[in-house]
Each structure stands twice: as C-alpha cells, then as structure tokens.
C-alpha cells in the first residue's frame, strides 16, 4: 500500500513538472505574441500620431495664410467679415 502511495506521489511530481513546463512555455509564447502585438500597436499609434501632427502642421493658420496669399488672384479668399455673419436671437426664432 505504501509503495503504491510512493509511486503515485512520484507520478504526480513528474506530471506536475511536465504540466508546469507546458504552461510556462505557453505563457512565454503568449507573452511574445503580446509583445509583438504591442510593438505593432505602438508602431501604428506612432504613425497615426505623426500623421495627425503632420496634418496640424499643414493646416496651421500661418501655412493657410501663406497658401491663401499665394492663390489670392484665383481663389479671392479674404478673412470673414462681421457684416457677413447674421446673428439670430433666440427670441426671434420663438
């Protein structure tokens, strides 16, 4: 009876070691995958950030002014004038 118990104990040990190895391998694998995904996300976010920044730089007021001055003859753009804006009071709508 005692022998059976000892053998079963040994078997349990071995199976535990094997299963722990499998699990640790799986964890490492998943971690690597997670790292890769993180790196891709990071790269994409950085790209998005750069594009966003690039867009803001390209549409900055100073740049738009330069473009507007450059194409003034064809586009005839000018700053908004107060008299061109109609202010509607809430009472008027009611």
């Amino acid at each position, binding site marked *: 009876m*005692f022998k059976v*118990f000892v053998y079963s*104990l040994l078997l*349990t040990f071995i199976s*535990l070691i094997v*299963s*722990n190895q*499998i*699990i640790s391998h*799986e*964890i490492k694998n*998943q*971690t690597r995958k*997670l*790292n890769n995904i*993180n*790196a891709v*996300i*990071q790269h994409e*976010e*950085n790209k998005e*950030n*750069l594009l*966003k*920044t690039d867009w*803001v*730089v390209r549409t*900055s*007021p*100073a740049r738009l*002014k330069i473009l507007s001055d450059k194409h003034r003859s064809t586009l005839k753009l000018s*700053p*908004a*004038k*107060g*008299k*061109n*804006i109609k*202010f509607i009071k809430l009472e008027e709508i009611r």
Partner: protein
Amino acid sequence: MGKIFKNKLKKTKIIAGDDLGVFFKSEKNSHQESYVSRNSPHISKERIHLAKFSFIFIFSLFILKSTSLALFPGDIRGIPRSIVSKTVKSPVPEIFDRNNKLLVTSVRTKRASIRNPVNPIETARLIKAVLPLWDEERLVKKLEKRSYVELADDISDVEHYDILNSGVAEVEFHPVWRRIYTNKELASHVIGYSGRDLVGLSGIEKTIPKSKLLQKDINLSIDITVQFHLEDEIKKGIDLYNADSGFGIVIDVISGEIIASASLPTFDPNIINKNYSKDEFKKATFNQVMQGSYELGSVMKIMTLAMALEDKSINLNDTFDDTICIKIAANRCLKNYNNDNASKPINPVECLVRSSNRCMAQIAQIVGRSKQKSFLQEAGLLDEYFLEIFETGSPLIPEKWSDNSMITISFGQGLGVVPLSFASGVASIVNGGYRIKPTLYSLNKRDQRGHSIIREEVSEKLRYAMRQVVKNGSGAQADIPGYAVIGKTGTADIPCNGSYGGCGNRTAFVGAFPGWEPQYVILVSFERPKANINKGVKRNSSYWNAGPTAGNIIRLIAPILNVEYDEKKEVELSTYSEFKKETL
C-alpha cells in the same frame, strides 16, 4: 495540526505529537509515557496517515491550479512588468487649444549612441558617412575621451537603417519621446518648451508635472487662429513702425480666459535648444505680457477716472482747468502731451478724450494718494500676479508713494505694471465692475467674475468715456464699424539713465469690443516705434501705431470669436442723465 483521536481501550484523549512533549516537560507524565511505549507502532501509523493526507491535500491544490492554468490560460493575472513599460501612451499629455486643435504632442523617436568603440578612428569615419553633420575629428576626440557618446537624437527610420548597415558594431539605439510643437512660434511663450526626455522648461510645459494635469490632455484657453492674427498683426506693426519689440493680449472679460497672448520677438520651441544664440534666446524667451513691467502711459487714465467716479469725488459734469500749472519739480509745471491744452474748462470725459495730464493730476489730487494706491491694489495692478505658469513678473512700485508719484501715476508714468494684470484690471472696469482672474485653461466661457471693484453705473460711464476716445479722440484708428470699439491710447517715455526723454517711447492701446456689452479686452503695445512717412505713418505716437494695429486685430478676430456685429448699436449712457452730452 493537533489531530485528535481517541484511545478506545482506555477512553483517554491522545493528541498526535503529545509523545514529543515528554522531552520538554520537566515533570514527566507517567501515564502518557507508558501509553506511548506500549502503542508506538500504532502512533507511527497515525503519523504516516497524517503526512499522507497533508501531501495529498497540498498536491491536490497544485494540480487544481495547474489544470486551471492549462485550461484557461487567458486567466493569467497580471501582465509582466516588461510589457507594461512598453506601453504606447506618452508620459506627458497632449495640449490642445480651446477648440481642440492640437498644439503639442509627443512622438517616439530613437536616439543613437555608441559605447566603448574598439577603433575610434575607423568608427568615426563610418559614422561620418551616415551622419554627415558630425565633424570627424571632433567625433574621434569624443570617442577617445569618453566611453559613451550620443550620436544623434530623433533619428529617422532611414538613418536607423543606415547606421545599422554602417558596420559599426558598438552602436546602440534607445527609444525616446519627443515633444512636437505643431504651430512652431505661435503661442510659444504660453506653451513653453521642453528639453531632453520631455522635461518642461518653461510655460505650461513646465507646470504640467507639478500640477494634477499629468493624467489627461490639456485644453488651453488660447484660440490658435486668434493667436495667429494677433501675432501676425503685431509682427507687421513691428516691421512697419520699425519698433524694437511688441506685445498684445486678448482676454475674455467674463471668464478671464486668455484668448491670445503674443510677445515678439518670439521663438520656435522645436529648435530652441539648438538654433539660438545666448542673446537671442534671452530676448526671445522673455514673455513681455506676463514677465514684463512697463509704464504704459495714458492708458492708465482709465484707472484714474474710474477711481474718482467710484469714490464719488467727481461726477461727469465737473470741469477742470487745463491751463493751470501743476508743479512736479521745483520750477517745473506739468505739461500735456505736445502741449495740447484746452482753452476752456473741460469735463472728465473730455479729459480722457484729450488725454489731459493736467486734468488727471487734478483728479488724483482730489481723490488722494492713499485711495489711489488702494484702488490700484483692488484692481490687481499692484499684485505680484499669479497665473498658472511660473514666468510672471511683478509691478515696479515707487519706493515712496509721494504726491509727485501720485500725480505721475495718474497719467501713467512712475508705475510699472505687468501688462496682463493691467488688461485684467481694464476688463474688470468694463465688465460691470467685477474683478476677474486671468487663466490659461479653457473654462468654456464660464462666468468667473469675482467681487465688485466699481459700481455698474461707474463701469457704464467709463465705457461711454472710452467710446468717446475712439470716436473723437486718439483711438480713432481702432474704430471698427459694427463693434463700437471702446478704448484708450497711451504714449509713455521710456526711462533711461535715471530720467525721461531721449530714449524713445512705448505706445499702447487698450480697448474692448463690442462697446455696448464688452466681451473681450485687447491690449497692444510697441517699444520704440518710429514714424514711417513713406508708408503714411506721420508720427511715433500710439494714434499712429498701437491704435491701427489694434483696429486691424479686432477686425480680424471679432468674427472668429462670434462677436455680434451691429452698425446701429452705440454705447449710450442710458440710466445716468446727470451728464450733459452737449458739453462735448
């Protein structure tokens, strides 16, 4: 673990491990001793059972946990630290303007460095081929002297690839964050700049780590389009009037939000650490609006008039002799600007329209110096102004507030004020008389008016008087149809070598729009502007420079700020009829 079992034969309770007790007890229990010696195989068996069950219990726990991990790997709690450290979020928040336009962001770049090169000369030659900005000899010296040399910050992917293929084995790449200021020079004094590794060195950038704002993105009160027009017009003004420098500010009179703040010359925070000499850096980074302290000249007369009307020392029907001599030195009488004296007695509104120094001196004398000082204190002009950024100046107050000081301060000389606090003071005068606290953070136009410093009726009188200055006086060039602009001009001598005169002047215009219910205050100033006859600028007074520049700015920014346009509306004294308009 005292497992209790019963001795069936003798009906005595024996606890496992009790036999060990005999070694520690001085007084031996003869009864238990005899039991142990008689039943030792039985006790050994019990112990084995105990150990067996303990092992089985512990291993069952292990097996259960291992099985659950194997079956549900997604339930692994906690992410390794190595992964957390690689998160993509910038450690410093992005900064936006009041309309959510991006002003500052962070991007990840790489820094290339080299550690302990085997052959510095060969390494320098190879590096020079891919990073041509390096001087080869300088690099060799550095490599020979130091074990670690930084080659380049913010390298591009192409440069990264080139360096990897250059054949230098000792090169290292470190990921670093870099702040990008999308609008370059715009609002640079407010936003500030940062050094290596996102360390804020001035402006809002410097305050971020010390405030609770580190976790979320920041919306400033600045409107970047208004900021552009303000800076652009002041820049044009500096060129046209050949001025040394200039500044401007636009404040919401209800919320205290700083809509735009410009101080020229300015700087590009993206390259401040690289492309500026020491002198340029010092001049460009000085924020005149918030750090400076200047005598702004006749714009101060608004305060003198407000003080006297609030004190009820005068009313709008009182008259003042503009020709009398007010002694400011042993044998010197106070002069009006350009010796322009009114031939007949004039009322306080005319005093402001004519910008009479003599008139204001008389008003100050009526009110008295202690009341003058306390009123200016109340209006916030004497405070060491607190704002959300560190770069704030303090007023230059005379050592002794004498009668002479009182007279000169009444028309804007002898007291240096921080332009931001002055603009806030004027906002408090025109918004119905309530003190406002300027802020750089967006409050969505929330009403932040504090305690009252003047009565509503005094505020209305001041608005009326300031409107007359723009309609009929020195502020005429700032009069933009449809907004009934109110304001006051000022031209002050710049002191040098302990006296006034001969060192140029500082011109200023402070105004508000729309005049019938002011929403925004604007302050524009130039240092040492000159006449430009070829361009139609006949003189160097504020009428010719600060006034028209302010007018141009109002024309451009009022539609952007949704200010009501109405050509028929005027600034009227509706309630207070004591004033005889025909005297004007």
